């Protein structure tokens, strides 16, 4: 019986691989973590090698490879969009075609030449892969499914329905009407990097007022079916130049130079964009709720990483439960393509619950060697001691690098590749920024809270295990958690269940025992501009080159001199 399928997503941004066997997710990882280059977009050789080794198989044992889009359909869209803006798009056309003629159109041949794989290859439509990545591991028997991103082949938004192993797309919105591209265009207008700065803009939004919302509504009018249109006079998605036109700049003022000062106008623009995004998503989800009558919603696509909008959907769309896949962006397409083949085509049972911990682990012997060779003094501790020691340091205001178990799949650090701090400390955000992260001052850090105590601190119904919702901090707790409170009173919460991550749960519980607050600051373990650490060597390098106080890697605890 066909059982093993390798899902791949690549050639745009954030490439990744995912191995599924008999319906279970064996491993998944993003290529950037291995190449140490953020949003690496090339063929995910390192990630797929890791996935196969995690499954104790080689490429020769695979029954199929599943790719997260249909390349010829996508090429048609790319060609048409270049033709639309010809001859202005000539330069972009030349550059783009060089990539297309490389190996995008000949994946089976490429798999043979790169890997020695000559088995079956499936091409799953981009948004169907997103939908599958959200529905199949959601744990919902039946759900409405919404996918929203920049663009796949032609689709930018799809609405669908899943039940059991069946998944169908009922309707789609098409390029160039794209909420993802709109968000990216304004992100670049505000001087942040596309595919990287969208989260920053979401954070910036809380500092502004949506004074441009009406004008944005004017250029993104709604349609009778609950969707929207993008007025092409304001945007240019034809190539690799600016995504907004001079008309946009005339209307909203000069674009911000990357790295330049941030003013009130920039904050207001971010707030306006965020409000419009929430409006559109609410309209879409409310329509989907009315249409499907489902109580559960699955969300995927890059826009589903917008945790502020997700919270609005959870609060106001009418759906009782919302599942957002932790790698909701294009990396998750690898999971979706594999899941579609595994469940829809081969009929394997669906997993009961998805774990985000699908990446590489690091053995104790390897960690010991890395620490020894780095010349660091360390202690090997039991889990109980490790959690107590770490919690004690956190309670004293120390910053701890925490690398445990398998790496997270998706952009969020969820307690296995995390930098931790004390959320009660009013200056903790500044301290983490000064010592390691060097992020923009306005960006918030997220709290990780024991799931059983979440409601005591946050206005949250249900779980937020993947840090993809941003509920409000309870009024009476705002003064308790100054380090994680955003100006709008929200926080991007991760709820931690013992069953999902026993060690991280134990650490937070230990911190709670010491302080009465079972919450820690949790941000990704990396330096600015770098991907999250993957291997122990990288964790040690960040520790050595930063001013982090402690490092807990596996069972080993390291303290910087003088702590």
């Amino acid at each position: 019986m066909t059982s093993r399928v390798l899902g791949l997503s690549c050639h745009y941004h954030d490439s990744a691989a995912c191995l599924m066997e008999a319906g279970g997710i064996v491993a998944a990882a993003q290529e950037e973590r291995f190449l140490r280059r953020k949003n690496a977009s090339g063929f995910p050789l390192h990630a797929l090698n890791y996935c196969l080794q995690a499954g104790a198989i080689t490429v020769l044992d695979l029954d199929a490879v599943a790719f997260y889009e249909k390349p010829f359909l996508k090429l048609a869209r790319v060609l048409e969009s270049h033709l639309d803006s010809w001859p202005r798009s000539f330069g972009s056309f030349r550059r783009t075609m060089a990539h297309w003629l490389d190996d995008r159109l000949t994946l089976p041949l490429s798999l043979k030449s790169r890997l020695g794989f000559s088995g079956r290859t499936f091409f799953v439509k981009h948004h169907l892969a997103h939908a599958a990545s959200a529905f199949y591991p959601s744990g919902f028997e039946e759900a409405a499914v919404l996918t929203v991103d920049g663009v796949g082949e032609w689709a930018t938004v799809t609405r669908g329905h899943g039940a059991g192993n069946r998944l169908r797309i009922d309707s789609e919105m098409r390029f160039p009407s794209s909420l993802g591209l709109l968000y990216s265009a304004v992100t670049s207008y505000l001087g942040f990097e596309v595919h990287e700065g969208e989260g920053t803009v979401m954070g910036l939004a809380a500092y502004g007022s949506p004074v441009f919302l009406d004008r944005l509504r004017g250029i993104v009018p709604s349609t009778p079916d609950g969707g929207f249109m993008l007025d092409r006079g304001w945007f240019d998605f034809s190539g690799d130049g600016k995504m907004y036109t001079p008309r946009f700049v005339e209307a909203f003022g000069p674009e911000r130079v990357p790295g330049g000062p941030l003013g009130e106008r920039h904050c207001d623009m971010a707030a306006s964009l965020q409000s419009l995004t929430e409006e559109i998503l609410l309209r879409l989800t409310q329509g989907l709720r009315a249409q499907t009558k489902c109580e559960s919603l699955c969300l995927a696509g890059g826009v589903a990483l917008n945790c502020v909008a997700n919270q609005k959907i959870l609060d106001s769309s009418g759906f009782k439960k919302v599942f957002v896949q932790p790698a909701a962006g294009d990396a998750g397409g690898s999971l979706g393509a594999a899941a579609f083949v595994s469940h829809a085509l081969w009929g394997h049972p669906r997993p009961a619950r998805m774990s985000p911990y699908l990446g590489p682990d690091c053995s104790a012997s390897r960690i010991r060697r890395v620490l020894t060779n780095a010349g660091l003094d360390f202690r090997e501790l039991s889990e109980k001691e490790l959690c107590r020691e770490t919690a004690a340091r956190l309670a004293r205001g120390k910053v701890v690098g925490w690398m445990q178990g398998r790496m997270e799949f998706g952009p969020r650090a969820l307690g296995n590749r995390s930098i931790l701090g004390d959320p009660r400390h009013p200056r903790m955000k500044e301290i983490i920024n000064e010592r390691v992260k060097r992020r923009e001052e306005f960006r918030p850090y997220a709290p990780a809270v024991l799931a059983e105590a979440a409601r005591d601190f946050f206005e949250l119904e249900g779980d937020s295990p993947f840090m993809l919702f941003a509920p409000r901090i309870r009024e009476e707790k705002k003064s308790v958690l100054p380090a994680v409170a955003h100006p709008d009173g929200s926080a991007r919460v991760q709820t931690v269940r013992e069953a999902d991550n026993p060690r991280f749960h134990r650490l937070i519980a230990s911190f709670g025992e010491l302080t009465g607050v079972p919450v820690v600051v949790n941000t990704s373990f990396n330096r600015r501009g770098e991907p999250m650490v993957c291997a122990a060597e990288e964790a040690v390098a960040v520790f050595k080159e930063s001013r982090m106080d402690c490092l807990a890697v596996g069972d080993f605890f390291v303290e910087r001199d003088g702590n």
Partner: protein
Amino acid sequence: METRLCGRCVLPESAPDIHLDSQGVCNLCRDHEKRRPEAGASRLLESDFTKIIEKHRGRHEFDCLVMCSGGKDSTAALYYAKRRYKLNVLAFTFDHGFETEEALDNVRRAVETLDATFLTYRSTFMRDMFARLLKSGSPAVICHVCAIWYMGLTYRMAERFDVPLIIAGWTKGQMTSQPVLTKCACNLAAPEYARMGRATKDFLAGLKDDPKYKDFPGSIEEVVARAQKRHKSLVLSPHWFLPYSADEYVPVIEKELGWRQPRLSYPAKTTNCALNFISVQWALKHYGYTHYHVEMSKLIREGLLTREEALEQLRADFDPELLNRIAGPLGFRFPDRTGA
């Protein structure tokens, strides 16, 4: 004066090729440090290995010839070839008369368990050369001379059975960037091998007047060049492409193939032939380090071994009786405990 060791790896200062800086770190470690940012991107991957083997699978009587010494690394390579990559294997063992029964037993158990076709070759051809090397006092490295012989022999066997791939059990510590043996093997021009390489070449050049060895290759490069003219076999080791260390594969071969660690071997935790003790003693005398120091230093740089572990495994304090018992058949006797 005591030789100074690099503070990071286990190589000693050895003019003119290995030198320590003011912080006590050798030039090889410094070079490695400079290359480090690209390490992730340039690492060999298992898919590189499968890509190669799939080009050759099923086109010949045997897909590959696996060089089996009975040690952990070559036994694991045989295991991978049969079980992981499902190749049709010709297992090949050579014995120059100094292989241990424990090692040969390991090979026999492995090929029986894996049901591999097995070819063994025993020869006394090299004995006179080893004797001549010792008696001449040449600083040539016995293991290097032996490697030239057994690689030539292995290529001939691959030619004889028309095998396209030769699989060795060389570790990442035995890998260099220069593809001397068509993607593998020691780079004798590298600083850590330069003096040893020159001495071996000089010694072999002096053998040309001996009818028995007049056609013996003068270097490993010559072995490869000759082999490539006759039969193009590609030589590679799965260990270079896999992320696993001996810690991970030794328990597997112990459990599945009944592999056993010999009581006595150098370095610790290896399965090298008896003559290896003499080769090590000889290299330590002439250079202050051996090719094992080179290998383990590389493993340290890759994070696969600590300096302390390496120093422990490399401790050489051989019983003179043991050395003389091995050297006896070569008509050589070590003068005392300390000198060779």
